[in-house]
């Protein structure tokens, strides 16, 4: 009797939590539709505020960042557009639309930086890693692992030598593949968690050689530029540009992606 009531209470609690969660979800979906409607009728300012409102609830998605970036772009705030496109890109690294719009927004960036050409295998690795977000890689990794177990089963239980041999090699391939995709997923996850890239928001900022105003001026960068944060000290951040230049600038000038 007591066991049954406990079970019932748990069930009810679970139901409440689920419904609350779905309620919040529903509200955000409504906001999302509203913001999209504002965007379509070219009321970009309203669209921006509603998209931001969704972000306030602590939820995010690549689509949301993308649309917010579009709205900011249309209101003329290119820096924020770039920031949101970059945020969208972190969540959906291989989305062609995000890439395209980011490229257009980047045309407004004054500082033009040539990337250091990285070795081909690194480029391949990055391009393969960026093919999917972390969770897709996790799924693939799990699938490959289960496949590995299946092959292992075949290897152990099959009586035929040919099947055993084939299962052996396929199993090895599956486990190696699972390991690789696991590392890709890990990489993508780290990118989301660490967020060690930032966008410059000051119209014009001098990068110093040390984290102090008295440091030697190294170079000038302009707003909208994407930089990598390599270190930080009190209110200063050490940044690294894509072309390899490094220096310190006040952290009020940058916004993390």
């Amino acid at each position, binding site marked *: 009797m007591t066991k049954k009531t406990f079970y019932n209470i748990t069930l009810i609690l679970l139901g409440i939590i689920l419904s609350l969660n779905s309620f919040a979800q529903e509200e955000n979906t409504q906001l999302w539709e509203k913001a999209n409607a504002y965007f379509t009728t070219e009321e970009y300012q309203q669209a921006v505020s509603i998209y931001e409102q969704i972000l306030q609830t*602590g939820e*995010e998605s690549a*689509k949301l960042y993308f649309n917010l970036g579009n709205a900011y772009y249309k209101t003329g705030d290119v820096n924020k557009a770039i920031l949101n496109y970059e945020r969208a890109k972190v969540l959906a690294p291989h989305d062609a639309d995000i890439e395209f719009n980011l490229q257009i927004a980047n045309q407004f960036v004054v500082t033009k930086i040539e990337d250091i050409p990285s070795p081909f295998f690194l480029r391949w690795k990055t391009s393969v890693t960026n093919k999917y977000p972390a969770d897709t890689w996790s799924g693939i990794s799990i699938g490959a692992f289960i496949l590995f177990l299946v092959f292992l089963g075949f290897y152990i239980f099959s009586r035929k030598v040919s099947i055993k041999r084939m299962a052996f090699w396929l199993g090895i391939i599956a486990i190696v593949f699972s390991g690789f995709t696991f590392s890709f*997923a890990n990489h993508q996850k780290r990118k989301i968690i660490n967020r060690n890239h930032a966008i410059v928001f000051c119209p014009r900022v001098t990068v110093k050689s040390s984290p102090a105003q008295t440091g030697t001026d190294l170079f000038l960068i302009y707003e909208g530029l994407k930089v990598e944060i390599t270190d930080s000290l009190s209110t200063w951040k050490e940044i690294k540009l894509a072309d390899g230049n490094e220096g310190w600038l006040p952290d009020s000038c940058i916004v993390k992606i």
Partner: protein
Amino acid sequence: MIKKLIIYSFLFCIAIATQAENTRFVMSAQNAIELGKQFRLSFTLNERGSNLKLPAGLSDNFDILMGPSTGQSTNISMINGRTTQVVNYSYTYILRAKKEGEYEIRPASINVNGKVFESNSLKIQVVKAQTKPSQAQTGGSQTQGSTQNVDLGKDNIFVRVAMSKRNVYRGEQIIASVKLYVNPNIPIAGFDEVNLPTYEGFYTQDIEIPQQINFTREVYNDKIYQVGILKKTILFPQQNGQLVVEPFSLALLVQQQVKARSFFDDFFSTHRTVKATITSSQVNVNVKDLPAAPANFLSGVGNFNIKSDISSNQVTTNDAVTLTVKISGTGNIRLIKNPELQLPADFEVYDPRATDNVRTTDNGATGTKTIEYLFQPRFEGDYTIPAIKFAYFDPAGGKYITKSTPEYLLNVTKGSEEQSTTVISSLRKEDVQLIGQDIRFIKQGNPALRIRNYTFFGTSGFYLIYAISTLLFILLFIVYRKKAKENANIALVRNKKANSVAKKRLKAASGFMKKNNNEAFYEEILKAFLGYLSDKLGIPIADLNRDSAVLKLQQRNVTQEVIDDYIEVTEQCEFARYAPAEGSEARNELYKKAESTMSRFEKQIKK
């Protein structure tokens, strides 16, 4: 008098009608003179005439001091063997004006071969007498031979830019003349340096004037000047607001009489050349902006007309059609942009060719701009070439005027196949033309929202899947292993159990024996053996009989002695089942034999 005049004019009309026009009778005089000064009034006639009648009323305003003095000049020219002779007769009077003012001298008349001709009329302005410019100020100290800068006085010599208008719309034309004013008493020897003005903020077009500067007399500020036009330019202001023509300077060489220093100097070097630099004053032009322009305003300001012409309106596909648009009129024709022609999208359109033909005269720039639109219809059908709307600004009226060309209907029939296919293939190759660039549109549909920074990767659930699948696998492995083992052991179990089952049966048999139930006794012993062998040897009971059992036992290396015992026991049992009962002694013996045989089987059949 009036009667006479009527007759004269009548005769004059007849004369014009009948006489060849090559009789010219011209009256000429300076157009501006000083009061009290003598001047010439001369008549020239290219034929011998008689009875020159001076203009009526001439003596009212002028004193005729002398005249007529007649002259004759003959000009014989031979061109390609043809000799032409021109004789000019001239009659000159010396006159003097009586009063200041502007006078019109009416035509004079002369009789040539019995016909009366009238001359032109003249306008003469008489101004009051002017003081002579002070010449030759100083004598001695000047070095001879070198030119020297002198100031001749701003009233005596100056230069200015005369603008036809000072208050204009942007793009409206202004005629600017650079005029040199010189006192008639100052002889100009030549120009030393000429820096003509630069008209900044204007689009300029020069009016052609003769290289040789013609000085004419003109009255300016009640004074007579020799006026020479150095340059004439049509200006089109391109900016709004106050436009300034900066001052510019001229250096002139002027001959001056030198005061004689000695008696001999009167004979030599009585003139010397001095340099006079004069600077113009600044001229301002106020430029008003045009009012809000209609859509098809092509920056034309002035007065224009538009005409168009199409080369053909019955063509086959891929024939070239030319639409010629002519804009003619007065104004900034060169600055007019080409009007846009909206042709159907599938026409092959070439860049329009524009030519302009602009004459610049004292009345401004006039001319035509011809724009040729060349296009080729690709497909058959009836097309409309739309009207070209041309708006221009009329500065006189201060408003925009729109004129339009007519619409044309173009009937295109199919041309030869060969041509069209080749062209279409080239048409298909055309790339998508990028017209504008914009970001891609927002994404719709499910936003797929998630908690920030949440990834399934790295959560305990994620690792749990690995763990559970591994565990599941191991569990599966264990279960399978056990099952396989069990499967393998069923025979063994039965083998193991065979002895005990057989013993049970034998025990039961001994029970039957004690109850004297013979049939059951024998039956049980047979069953015990059959069951035992079936289990031991792995032969199904259905397939088991004595022969097959013996064969199998022999294969298992069971000794013949035991097999013989087994045969004996079974034979006895089978026999006894159907035979009359035997003594209990025999049954007991049989039982014991069966027991011993069984135990020997057990020893010998190992597996």
